[in-house]
């Protein structure tokens, strides 16, 4: 073969990778410069680049831990997201996680992705070749996959185009956290209950998207990017190195894209599914590895994704811990029984124990920056175990802690709260199926989900089944997908798998096959039932078809909308907030109770968001039910001179006094307990505003100077 022919072949082999690399470069060059672009296209391109960046970081992890092993795109992207989460937390400790750092994190990930593309160009080509072969051989399934991808694109763009944010959670807190993170490099909010309730991983990810997406596109991370990551994890799943049947991938895709979305805000919902699913997949990946692989190399990816899951929501914290403990526990004791010789048992036990210690140690290392930032913000390393700035008078447990009530709530959440009515059938299938490997990823995820579920319901018994259902959805949905993948791909299900040896062995193999078929049949029935229920059940009064139609309308409107000018922001609301903030001297500390604090410039003033007054405050504790003088004394003591707030007759939603007076007789104990605090605080602010100089007053927004009398 001549040199030119060889070069031509090399060029042909590198072509798919080169094309992908060129696409990434072109998209980066288009989206990075600060200019005006159509928001739909800009957000879609940027969000995909963030996923590529995650994959780049994940490729770097792969080079470190398993340079010669095949690691699929989904696993890499999620490992990368875990690493980005760790780095983000690390940068937040010295308040360096600013807009520039966020941009750098994404850009460095893109560089890693391009390097990985080049290094693995042959593998990229073989994936393309496989896809081409598959389309030729299976045109009907390819057509169905095409339709599925079409629905996915609709879902992806629909979430981007959904500009509805929750005035209760997002507008007053979550969006402000993302803005504050980019403005100040960290999120220090000692008065915010929502800040206390999550270490902040979700805020970091939303902020990464915000670099080019903006506040109106804040659903992009959870409902677009995370769904894509989940699908990549499903598509990349292997059972004993065998590809997952495309029909199984299609089933999972259909299940996922039709599940009723009960997320009411931008907090973690699908991101929980993605991180728990990758935890399951990483345990399964570690189980397939060669016994000679060094212990820390299996432990590191587990630590990255496990600790990242912990940062998303406080109620996620026990799940990765229990899952890894269950996995290692089952492996340690299972292997001790199965290995023949004492020497083999001892060697295996030592290696497993070493890996367990590495996983525990590295997980702690990965989560410590987030715990430190939590301390900086709320004087606690581990809420709710340690209250920190939390007000214990507003405990979240029901005041009548009877076992019967607890059981009723547990059952209520399981049957009505989690938006997967067929959950019980998946649990049944999980009980029937027998896993192939000693790490038992499915059993471990199942145990962790069950314990996490019970703990969550127990700890938040003041709330109702529907609200708690949203919090436990992440692990429950991940477990359902895991059951689907395991039962439909287990080796024992395969007719051709034969165990050699005696009749006993063959009988065992036959029994295993029967169990696998039973589990698969249950899962098929459960999936079809779930699909049917999802199609005919109304969520918030809407059928699934209505939701997709609404998405199409939103996409169309956003696609046609004119690109917004970037600087200065022309929105009247921003200008109003700017005027209001300008009335406060630069660098002076302020505390705010506003409908849309995300419109503030947090780099201009140190600002504390009062969020839901009563739940959290700096020592000695914001005084309640003691009059406005005490409140004034308190703010003077902690160095707050300026208070900015919206009056209750102008508040768009959260700070309407009349609404909270009605909540005093609400059926849910949570609101009955909280309502007095907000009413009292609003009344105190009104009283203070009559005594002190008003620096600003426009459209119900008032700034008062506590240092000057009126």
């Amino acid at each position, binding site marked *: 073969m001549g040199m030119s022919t060889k070069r031509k072949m090399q060029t042909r082999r590198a072509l798919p990778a080169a094309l992908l690399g060129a696409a990434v470069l072109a998209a980066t060059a288009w989206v990075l410069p600060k200019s005006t672009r159509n928001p739909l296209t800009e957000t879609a391109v940027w969000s995909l680049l963030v996923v590529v960046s995650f994959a780049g970081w994940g490729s770097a992890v792969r080079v470190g831990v398993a340079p010669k092993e095949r690691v699929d795109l989904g696993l890499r992207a999620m490992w990368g997201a875990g690493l980005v989460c760790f780095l983000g937390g690390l940068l937040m400790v010295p308040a360096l996680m600013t807009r520039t750092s966020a941009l750098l994190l994404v850009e460095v990930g893109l560089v890693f992705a391009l390097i990985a593309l080049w290094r693995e160009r042959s593998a990229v080509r073989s994936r393309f070749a496989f896809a081409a072969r598959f389309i030729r051989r299976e045109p009907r399934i390819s057509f169905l996959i095409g339709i599925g991808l079409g629905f996915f694109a609709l879902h992806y763009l629909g979430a981007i185009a959904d500009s509805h944010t929750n005035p209760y959670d997002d507008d007053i807190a979550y969006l402000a956290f993302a803005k504050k993170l980019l403005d100040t490099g960290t999120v220090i909010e000692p008065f915010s209950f929502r800040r206390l309730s999550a270490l902040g991983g979700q805020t970091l990810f939303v902020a990464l998207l915000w670099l080019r997406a903006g506040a109106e596109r804040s659903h992009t991370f959870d409902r677009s990017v995370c769904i894509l990551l989940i699908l990549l994890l499903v598509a990349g799943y292997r059972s004993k190195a065998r590809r997952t049947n495309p029909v199984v991938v299609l089933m999972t895709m259909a299940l996922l894209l039709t599940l009723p979305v009960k997320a009411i805000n931008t907090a973690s919902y699908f991101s929980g599914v993605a991180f728990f699913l990758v935890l399951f997949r990483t345990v399964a990946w570690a189980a397939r590895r060669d016994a000679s692989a060094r*212990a*820390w190399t299996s432990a590191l990816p587990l630590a990255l994704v496990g600790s990242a899951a912990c940062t998303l929501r406080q109620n996620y914290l026990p799940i990765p811990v229990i899952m890894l403990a269950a996995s290692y526990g089952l492996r340690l004791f299972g292997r001790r029984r199965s290995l023949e010789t004492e020497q083999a048992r*001892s*060697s295996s*036990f*030592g*290696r497993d*124990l*070493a890996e367990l*210690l*590495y996983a*525990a*140690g*590295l*997980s*702690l*290392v990965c989560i*410590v920056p987030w*715990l430190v930032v939590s*301390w900086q913000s709320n*004087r*606690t*390393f*581990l809420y709710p*175990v*340690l*209250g*920190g700035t939390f*007000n*214990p*008078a507003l405990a979240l447990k029901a*005041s*009548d802690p*009877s076992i019967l*009530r607890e059981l009723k709530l547990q059952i209520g959440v399981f049957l009505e709260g989690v938006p997967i009515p067929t959950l019980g059938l998946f649990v049944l299938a999980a009980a029937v199926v027998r896993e192939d490997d000693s790490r038992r990823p499915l059993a471990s995820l199942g145990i962790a989900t069950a314990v996490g579920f019970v703990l969550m319901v127990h700890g938040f018994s003041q709330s109702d089944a529907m609200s708690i259902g949203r919090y436990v959805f992440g692990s429950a949905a991940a477990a359902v997908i895991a059951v689907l993948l395991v039962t439909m791909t287990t080796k024992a299900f395969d007719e051709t798998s034969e165990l050699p040896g005696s009749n006993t062995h063959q009988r065992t193999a036959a029994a295993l096959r029967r169990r696998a078929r039973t589990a698969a049949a249950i899962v098929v029935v459960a999936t079809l039932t779930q699909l049917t229920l999802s199609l005919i059940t109304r969520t918030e009064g809407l059928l699934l078809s209505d939701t997709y139609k609404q998405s199409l309308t939103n996409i169309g409107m956003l696609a046609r909308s004119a690109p917004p000018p970037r600087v200065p922001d022309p929105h009247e609301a921003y200008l109003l907030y700017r005027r209001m903030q300008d009335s406060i001297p630069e660098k002076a500390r302020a505390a705010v109770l506003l409908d849309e604090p995300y419109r503030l410039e947090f780099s201009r003033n140190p600002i504390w968001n009062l969020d839901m007054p009563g739940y959290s405050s700096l*020592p000695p*504790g914001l005084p*309640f*039910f*003691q009059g406005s003088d005490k409140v004034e004394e308190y703010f003077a003591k902690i160095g707050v001179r300026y208070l900015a707030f919206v009056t209750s007759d102008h508040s768009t939603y959260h700070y309407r006094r009349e609404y909270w*007076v*009605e909540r*005093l*007789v*609400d*059926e849910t*104990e949570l609101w*009955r*307990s909280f*309502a*007095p*605090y907000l*009413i*009292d605080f609003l009344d105190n602010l009104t009283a203070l505003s009559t005594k002190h100089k008003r620096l600003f007053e426009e459209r119900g927004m008032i700034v008062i100077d506590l240092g000057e009398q009126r």
Partner: protein
Amino acid sequence: MRPPIPIFAIFVCMLGLGAVTSMLACSRSEPDAAVAEEIARRDAFRVAMLDAEDAGRARSVSSRPDVMFEEDFTRVFFDPATSFRNHAYRWMGRRAHIRLKTQGDRPMRVRALGWLDRKILYTKPFVTFSIDGQFVYETPPTEDGHFWGEFIVKPELLRTEWVDLVIAPSSIAFHWAAPPNLSVAVLYKFDWEPVTP
């Protein structure tokens, strides 16, 4: 020969555990007395606020720190439905259950006002009250269907922190539907307070 457990792994683990332990030790805890005081102030504020806002009727049939409405009660309805300041009530069923918090060995007074739709019932029912399964009181409704139950619960029946009160109006069981959806009995006032000497 390499040790089975690398020293570094143990070191990292111990470091992490040490860090977490010291972090836990540094965290602040609130004294219980101050918490109890704040809760008492909050409850008093809630009562005063609802009365000041002319919503006392809703207060008397809503769950509160010492009274929890449970099964066989609907949510609170208002008549007219436009404001929580209007006449407030809950539909109740055959065995309407309320959890009541006791106050040590103090006798407590129950005052319950309700109404039964006798035009639908075609009969004269009676209403019984029992605490933790023990009958304590019975009252018939008036001609227009209103009933008034007021009685003192002796300390012997209040030995646990919470007790179960069941209000059972007779003759509201229909074979085609389950109460409280029948909408034939309501509770529009419920008080639970210690007996003052």
